């Protein structure tokens, strides 16, 4: 098979390629949203003054969560989620929720630490000023501290998103179903080629690499746009 033939073959399968890319991105971006929400909640719990026993218990939970998730490989978490915890999804039409939740929970632990560092980087005087005009801790956090922290953590958050987009390639280790049909994420499709059509395996690897690279470059562009927009608030 000549190189041109291989490319032509890949072009024929473009529908399948785009579909698998769609699945990869769906998993990644849903997980980013879940991860961000979990991250903000955990970070705020970690930072809240430990005066209330409920906060202390929640803080213990948050610390354990972060330790366990950061301490185990993503693939192990995904397989545990698939094989035992979310086994019920085996019996429904679509099991994409398994990787979405697994990656969301995974990302939440990293986001929590990123956001916590961002909140800590905001000058202590901002909280004091908020409290001194009678605002509660929570209101000051939401209106003053978190908006400033987000600005600081945008580059690191995007770093995490980029890692996550690429890391979703490990879902190729589990069997996905969409609408009752077998489905593949981008790397899953490439791996399938290794068995189905070994001659084009290499070409598909390069194609997958190019696609990931393009997505990461688009994300980087988005990051710069957001950073520029947020910078306007300073002038």
């Amino acid at each position, binding site marked *: 098979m000549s190189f041109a033939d291989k490319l032509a073959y890949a072009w024929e399968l473009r529908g399948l390629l785009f579909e698998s890319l769609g699945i990869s991105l769906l998993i990644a971006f849903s997980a980013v949203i879940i991860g961000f929400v979990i991250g903000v909640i955990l970070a705020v719990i970690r930072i809240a003054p430990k005066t209330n026993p409920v906060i202390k218990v929640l803080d213990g939970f948050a610390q354990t969560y972060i330790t366990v998730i950061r301490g185990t490989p993503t693939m192990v978490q995904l397989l545990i989620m698939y094989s035992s915890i979310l086994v019920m999804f085996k019996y429904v039409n679509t099991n994409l929720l398994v990787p979405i939740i697994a990656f969301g929970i995974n990302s939440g632990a990293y986001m929590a630490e990123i956001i916590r560092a961002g909140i800590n980087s905001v000058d202590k005087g901002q909280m004091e000023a*908020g409290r001194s005009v*009678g*605002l509660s801790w929570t*209101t000051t956090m939401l209106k003053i501290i978190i908006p*400033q922290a987000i600005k600081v953590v945008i580059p690191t958050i995007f770093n995490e998103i980029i890692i996550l987009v690429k890391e979703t390639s490990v879902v190729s280790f589990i069997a996905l179903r969409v609408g009752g049909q077998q489905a593949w994420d981008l790397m899953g499709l490439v791996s399938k080629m290794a068995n189905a059509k070994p001659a084009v395996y290499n070409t598909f690897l390069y194609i997958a690499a190019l696609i990931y690279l393009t997505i990461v470059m688009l994300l980087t562009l988005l990051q710069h746009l957001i950073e520029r927009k947020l910078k306007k*608030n300073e002038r």
Partner: protein
Amino acid sequence: MNDNFIEIKGLFKNFGKLEVLKGVSCSIRKGEKVAIIGASGSGKSTLLRCMNLLETPTYGEVWFEDKLLTPIDPYLHFDVIRLSKTYGKLLAAYTAEHPGVAEADADAAVIADIKKRDLLRKSEGSAFAKAVRDLYRANFQNVDYTRRNIGMVFQHFNLFNNLTVLENMTLAPVQLKLKTPEEAKKRAMELLERIKLSDKANVYPSTLSGGQKQRIAIVRALAMNPKVMLFDEPTSALDPEMVGEVLDLIRQLADEGMTMVIVTHEMGFAREVADRVLFMDGGVISEEGTPEELFNHPQNPRTKDFLSKVL
């Protein structure tokens, strides 16, 4: 009801092992302008920050308009101490040791002993616990609520960096539902007009000079219509040429009758504006008096020493 806005009773504040305040009591009366002076590390800023509970006192009580902001400090309430188990035990022991002692003397001796040895640490019985709880419930007021009435101006301005000048001033009144957004905006613009910065309403704090930031910080506090203003070294972080504009604004507020407490290194200003000056040294108020008394006829050698260095 008395005419004290702020009352500080037996205040101690420790940061870890460092004792910053070692038993401070003072009160700020309505309409009074009080300056707190003293060397760095003497506890003057900490005392000011305890007045609106930005620092939580280790012992002692802070009251604002007869409402309690801190937990009850049982050592300040003799009636409560008398309900404790320890008091009962010690009183029995004392009267046994000193037969024929007058009741009042025994009482005073035992209370002094309990305070000195800090004995009220463990469970002191239900009558004691109930007395503490009742006293607290009867007098307590949420500190967030109280802080609406206490404006604070910081050394480093602490304008909200993510909000415009106008938003800085309207955030709290609107969030706390004291004013509608329109009313809050109108009031904020009046205040900005007053300090001749209405053209800065829609810019972010990072574009302002230090003097402008501090004047806006002052009117941000005024936007809440506070009853008392606390100033924590309001000019210490300013370039010298901007000190005047900030002091002028504070002076205007003083002339209008605002109650204020100012921690400052500007001795000339303290002397001119204050009705009363507190000199702090080593975590206690070691001398207080009118500016005339304190600056011209200091009694305490520490005060004399300090003034000779700064005047």
